[in-house]
């Protein structure tokens, strides 16, 4: 086993595929002013290859909701409640304390336990013990971060989630290799899903998080593939003449909405993934593209320039009357729903300025969240609290995340070139 791992590592290094370290560097560009002070005490007896408390500390800090205490200023290193003197932690201005232990259980297993303590009430808010294999230590740490985040904010944590994105390696050659990758939400553990010198586009997670649909031009023509992540098995589900683009899974995972131009102008179709039956949903002579399902599966929103400029429209997923949703701004495109179905996030353009905006479905009011000028490909995180999108400064593409109120912002920079089209796993 070790032997194979070593060979794999050598081969990956030879191909310049990053593995052990983060592919994305994440920095907070704007945090909220009312960030809550939290101290994560380094966990006791850490012999594990992953520093769990450091990962938890970094997750919580990156969220922007918390002001993390530096280790140097800590009045002690308790790992059990009995060893905590709450007054000491009050004196250094902390509201919450995280303590824990990691014990080597032998056989490549670790026992991890942690407690979240309320410094002022002097009691425990959360306490868990879990077993983790060496390979799962980072996941366990992210899981701990999720539990703490949810307890303290009331919102589901997304630290143990994964993101898919597309990279272009800028290695000075004319042949830029493109890669569809999946990484942990903190940018670690990047895994290549597909590579090509021809464009890769529009990755879309299946609702169960097990598959990705995406567009590849590897055969010099557009085709849509569905790839099962665990096995690498891949099926070409659409390769009609013309455009095969913008795949979007139905919430039940049985169908893909997509854009085909086989009949002339690009229209929205629904493809049953197992039977391959195809239903045409829109029939305009204009561009109809970028379909996205409502969470209940009843409606599909899409971009159309039937009115002259691209705007967002909605149609029943069974077909029928199409309704225009956006009227403000010269350019509204690539809309998708929030997990609760109450809002749409979209690219909102005016002149040369493209920003990310959220529309309230009830009032149709549009709230612009970002500062542009080249923001694109927005989507909601599964907890509905953050929006992930792609941005550009100069020639470098990077990813950003912004909270729904616009107050908190993170930047995710791909260390080897450009990164685009991010998508958070469900």
């Amino acid at each position, binding site marked *: 086993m070790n032997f194979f791992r070593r060979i794999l590592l050598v*081969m990956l290094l030879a191909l310049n595929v990053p593995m052990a370290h983060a592919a994305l560097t994440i920095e907070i560009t704007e945090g909220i002013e009312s960030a809550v002070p939290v101290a994560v005490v380094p966990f006791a007896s850490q012999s594990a290859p992953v520093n769990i408390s450091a990962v938890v500390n970094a997750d919580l800090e990156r969220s922007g909701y918390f002001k993390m205490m530096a280790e140097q200023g800590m009045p002690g290193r308790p790992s059990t409640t009995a060893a905590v003197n709450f007054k000491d932690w009050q004196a250094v201005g902390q509201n919450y304390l995280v303590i824990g232990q990691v014990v080597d259980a032998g056989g490549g297993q670790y026992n991890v336990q942690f407690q979240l303590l309320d410094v002022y009430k002097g009691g425990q808010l959360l306490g868990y013990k879990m077993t*983790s294999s060496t390979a799962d230590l980072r996941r366990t740490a992210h899981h701990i971060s999720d539990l703490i985040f949810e307890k303290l904010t009331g919102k589901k944590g997304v630290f143990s989630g994964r993101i898919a994105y597309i990279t272009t390696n800028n290695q000075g050659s004319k042949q830029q290799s493109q890669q569809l990758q999946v990484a942990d939400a903190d940018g670690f553990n990047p895994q290549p899903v597909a590579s090509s010198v021809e464009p890769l586009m529009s990755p879309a997670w299946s609702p169960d998080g097990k598959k990705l649909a995406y567009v590849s031009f590897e055969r010099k023509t557009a085709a849509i593939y569905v790839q099962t*992540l665990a096995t*690498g098995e891949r099926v070409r589900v659409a390769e009609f003449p013309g455009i095969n683009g913008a795949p979007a899974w139905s919430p039940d995972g049985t169908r893909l909405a997509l854009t085909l131009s086989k009949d002339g102008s690009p229209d929205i179709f629904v493809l049953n993934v197992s039977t391959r039956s195809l239903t045409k949903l829109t029939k305009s002579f204009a561009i109809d593209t*970028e379909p996205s399902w409502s969470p209940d599966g009843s409606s599909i929103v899409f*971009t159309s320039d039937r009115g002259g400029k691209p705007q967002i429209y909605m149609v029943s997923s069974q077909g029928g009357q199409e309704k225009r949703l956006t009227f403000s701004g010269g350019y509204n495109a690539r809309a998708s729903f929030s997990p609760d179905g109450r809002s749409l996030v979209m690219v909102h353009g005016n002149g040369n300025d*493209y920003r990310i905006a959220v529309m309230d479905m009830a009032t149709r009011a549009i709230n612009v969240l970002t500062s542009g000028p080249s923001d694109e*490909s927005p989507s909601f995180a599964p907890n509905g609290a953050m929006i992930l999108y792609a941005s550009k400064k100069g020639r470098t593409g990077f990813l950003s995340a912004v909270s729904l109120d616009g107050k908190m912002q993170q930047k995710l920079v791909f260390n080897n070139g450009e990164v685009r089209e991010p998508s958070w796993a469900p």
Partner: protein
Amino acid sequence: MKLNKTLLALAIGTLLLSACSDSDEKDTSLTDGSQNNTSGINDASTSGLNKGAGLNGSEMNGSGMNGMSGNGDYASTLGPEFNDPNNPLSKRTVYFMLDSSEVMPDFVPVIAAHAQYLIANPSQRITLEGNADERGSREYNIALGEQRAKSVASMMKVKGLSENQLQIVSYGEEKPAALGNDESAWEQNRRVEIVYQPK
């Protein structure tokens, strides 16, 4: 060389699979935490945290290895007229205005010259590659690039060119001719490339 790369990719795929099945085995031992006597500490299941690990590197496409689209240099081997700057056949890129797929008058003679050449050489095939600048959303730009390629195609068909000799693909903003985010880069990227295919 190409073969080597393919073999390497296959080998990596296999290794990733073996690494993956290994971690799947470990999955089964990733069980619920045992009951602990420290007060207030609950059990937690971490099983399922590992789902979806072990992605497989997918096949690299050999035919794509020679990459770069563009003014293919196959056309320049067809005859001196393709390299003579005074001959419209030397121009194989048609440029467009912002958000428009209308062919500008300057390019009408270029498109006509290619149509005539192709009619005279019926075994020659071309691909019209539509492109867009980077502004706006990517899939919309794919549609815009296709509209541009179709404008050029229909002009060629009006001249009498057979549908069988031409193929259309749109790369949207995915294959920029010029990098940069200003008008001088954008105007070079709003284009249709007439790519002669090797016979």
